[in-house]
């Protein structure tokens, strides 16, 4: 089966939903349910026929369906599913800030809010498979442009608009850097496909400065997408202003897809014998160290949960970059690309859990400040427990998924003898204990004002259960993910 069929199917589904939206007279929630069903079918297809995927010869130049690609496709589908489920919880807020006074019905905008994530999903799935500069660029733009709309979706909220403008301007800047870098790389090597570039880099004769310049620009462009320091400045404001489901999508889906591309690009640049390999690793180490430090230290002072998660997302990008920088270590018997994939797989459930709780809370009138979450653990013990597990996992406590990811990164850094980055990672993780535990403490302390119990829909409860189970199962039985990844390598 051609793996592109899944992407095409989802794209067509998105278009149909967009088309159905203006014609539909019944509740817009139907569209969301159709999208969920479609995504489930896609996920099922991916799982059942993952082994038998074959790329037609005409596409092999720019499209690859190896285990890593299939894994990131799965991540893309699951995060889109989660985003749509969270959107259903968030619908009242969305409606409040989208519908005008004379809007038809109470569900204005919900239809588009379902179909746009599908387009993002298609983009991320293609990114997972892209191994050609053009494909990378086009799929990345599909994702980014859809996000421009989604981030500023709540057009009557000044915060959302501000976020939209910031994201648009910095996104455009990063795209510019990326394309400029690609132009340099293409101009020097004459190759568009990553395989070709790799060969050219290995056989390069002469000065490698221009190559390095191009590579650095490409890394900078991608650095924006994964929120690496110093390209992280857009993150806090955009995360805070965007609709909460979209913030979750940005911090998981967009980051995962960005790292899928980054993995392939870095592996190309640092291939054995590449003339710029060592310098690129140095660059990555600098990025990683700065990202870990800035992300974690800035998170300490945050009082808004959404902003805190924004900085935490930066910090996690740092660990991921550190794993990528250990691209040449082999002692661990896990390839760095798999450490990155593993880390992202663990990062997905814990982040979505936090955002699910945030969305439900916001929809029921509770704010996003840490203060307003006080007493959550007493009022709804299950929700409190789920959030505690998610935060403990983000902090990297053992027996949760988050620890396994961090452990692999720390081990890889130890074996690669990157002691400075190792020290920074340890400082960062210790800081993480502080600000994640601060949230745990908040949800168990007594509230100043009585607030309502937070209610969740059945779908959200299912999602909650699945994600909590995933955190613990991966934390206790990491082979579960490892099997998927190793199978993909073969």
């Amino acid at each position, binding site marked *: 089966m051609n793996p592109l069929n899944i992407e095409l199917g989802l794209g067509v589904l998105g278009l149909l939903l967009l088309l159905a939206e203006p014609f539909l007279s019944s509740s817009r929630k139907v569209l969301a349910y159709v999208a969920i069903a479609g995504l489930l079918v896609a996920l099922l297809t991916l799982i059942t026929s993952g082994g038998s995927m074959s790329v037609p010869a005409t596409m092999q130049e720019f499209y690859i369906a190896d285990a890593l690609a299939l894994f990131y496709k799965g991540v893309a589908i699951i995060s889109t599913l989660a985003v749509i489920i969270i959107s259903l919880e968030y619908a009242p807020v969305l409606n409040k800030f989208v519908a005008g006074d004379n809007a038809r019905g109470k569900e204005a905008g919900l239809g588009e809010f379902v179909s746009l994530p599908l387009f993002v999903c298609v983009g991320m799935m293609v990114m997972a498979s892209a191994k050609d500069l053009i494909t990378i660029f086009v799929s990345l733009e599909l994702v980014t442009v859809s996000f421009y709309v989604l981030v500023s979706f709540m057009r009557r909220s000044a915060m959302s608009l501000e976020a939209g403008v910031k994201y648009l301007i910095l996104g455009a800047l990063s795209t510019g850097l990326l394309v400029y870098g690609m132009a340099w790389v293409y101009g020097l090597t004459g190759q568009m496909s990553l395989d070709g570039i790799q060969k050219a880099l290995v056989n390069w004769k002469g000065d490698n400065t221009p190559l390095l310049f191009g590579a650095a620009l490409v890394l900078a462009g991608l650095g924006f997408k994964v929120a690496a320091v110093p390209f992280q400045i857009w993150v806090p404001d955009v995360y805070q202003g965007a609709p909460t489901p979209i913030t979750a999508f940005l911090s998981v889906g967009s980051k995962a897809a960005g790292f899928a591309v980054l993995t392939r690009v870095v592996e190309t640049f640092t291939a054995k014998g590449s003339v710029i390999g060592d310098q690129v690793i140095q660059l990555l180490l600098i990025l990683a160290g700065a990202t870990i430090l800035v992300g974690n230290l800035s998170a300490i002072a945050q009082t808004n949960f959404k902003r805190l998660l924004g900085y935490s997302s930066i910090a996690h990008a740092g660990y991921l970059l550190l794993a990528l920088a250990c691209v040449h270590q082999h*002692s*661990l*018997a*896990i390839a760095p690309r798999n450490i990155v994939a593993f880390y992202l797989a663990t990062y997905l459930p814990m982040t979505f859990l936090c955002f699910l709780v945030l969305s439900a809370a916001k929809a029921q009138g509770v704010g996003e400040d840490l203060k307003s979450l006080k007493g959550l653990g007493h009022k709804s*013990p*299950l929700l409190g*427990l789920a959030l*505690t597990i998610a935060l*403990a996992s983000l902090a990297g*406590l*053992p*027996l949760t998924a988050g*620890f396994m990811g961090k*452990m692999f990164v*720390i*081990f890889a850094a*130890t*074996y690669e003898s990157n002691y400075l980055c*190792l020290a920074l990672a*340890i400082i960062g*993780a*210790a800081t993480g*204990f*502080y600000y994640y*535990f601060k949230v*745990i*403490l908040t949800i*168990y*302390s007594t509230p100043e004002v009585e607030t309502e119990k937070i209610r969740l829909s059945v779908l959200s409860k299912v999602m909650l259960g699945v994600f909590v189970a995933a955190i613990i199962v991966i934390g*206790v*039985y*990491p*082979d579960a993910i*490892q099997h998927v990844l*190793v199978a993909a390598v073969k």
Partner: protein
Amino acid sequence: MSPLEIIILLPILAALAVWLGAPSRGTSLAISLVNLAIVATLFVQYSGQHVDGKMAYQAAHTVLTTPHIQFAVGADGLSLTMALLTTIVTAAAVWCTVDKERIYYTASLLISAGALGAFLSTDIFFLYAFHELALIPTFLIIALYGHGEKKEAAWKITLYLGVGSLILLAGLAGVVWLCSPKGALTFDLAQLKPFVGKDNAAWWGTYCFFTLLLGFGTLVSLFPFHSWAAPAYASAPTPIAMLHSGVLKKFGLYGLIRIALPLFPGAIHTPWIQQALLLMLLGNILVVGLITIHQRRLDDLLANSSVMHMGYIFLGLASGNALGINGAVLLMFAHGISISLLFLLNGKLRNQVGTLEFDKLGGLATNAPFLSIIFGIAAFASIGLPGLANFAGEVLIFLSTFQGFDVTKGFTMLQITTILSLWGVVISAVYMLRAYRKIFFGAPASGLFVSDPTLSQRVPMFFLSAVLLIVGCQPSLLLNVIQSSITAIGLK
């Protein structure tokens, strides 16, 4: 399924049940007693059947293929002794918790499960992980229900233990790297081989050992990384103080004996490491000891004394011979029992009297003779009076440092340290006896009302003091199994 897996899982399941609404005290108490019964049975069975001190009751489930991590449990004399300590203290801690929120019971059970898991795992991944499991409940309870400067104390313990654990993790990464069989990284203790570094590679072993010493040491409040312990214990509610100072803190020492000493044989005798360790433990005994004398509140005094006594156990480890390590393990057990009994009494006094300041207390023995007797036993045990459990351990440790003493060469640094440490015994006698006198004797302070606890509340106190007496009079009950296992893991 190994019985060890059952005793680790039971408290976790019970904690979940309590959290979701099961009757809190009944469930917790039942599970703690069942666990105590199982562990005691296993202990008796083991000391009868396994004179060789090898691992028993083993079971393993692979959770990660490369590098090899498995959920593996197994017990020898060393871990059974620690498990016995855990279950005894848990039962006492849960028993003395009455009419509290569910979260108290959940936390106690989780800490107990974490400690049991750490002591009974034979895979260093889970050994490490279970210890961390106990960190969240400790932090939460201190931060939410602690006394005094609870938030500060909670943050201090969390950050210190967090950083300590991460340093430890880096050390463990080194262990896995250096000690794994060729070509296959593994976390399985049974497969990790002692590190023998040739010439240039030897320093890897010493540095890795030192990292482990710092990591584990922070968890045991080794001077100068001890400042988290006193405020945390002084602030913590009774069951948490009992469980953490009595049981969980011993994890660091257990880890040193189980992982660091056997896998890096001889590293402890490296001059700079031994000297550093001796200086640090002298800090525990003398510096913290002097600080303890100056405390004016019972909770601060107990908290500091708990830090101080860790110095003796480290001295046993620093001696590097089997005798000292036997003594250290025995003292770990005895200290766990005595300090938790003291914290139990501390909690009772706080509830009844409302103040713990020595200046406001006095003459309590008149109205509460039972309390005063029990406190006496615990305080004497803590000082190291003969006939009580701590004595045997301390004597073994002091003797071990004089092993191979050569009159012609004079004292080595180890022996000088021992001589200085003996002053620590005097220091503890000073502060403990003074506390005892100020609280229970002298002129009764006005406005204090105190009575002996009810019969049901006397049970845990009676039980803990009985353990102190029995082990004190017959230390061979424990020493037999400890010794064979210490030999079996290769410490001579």
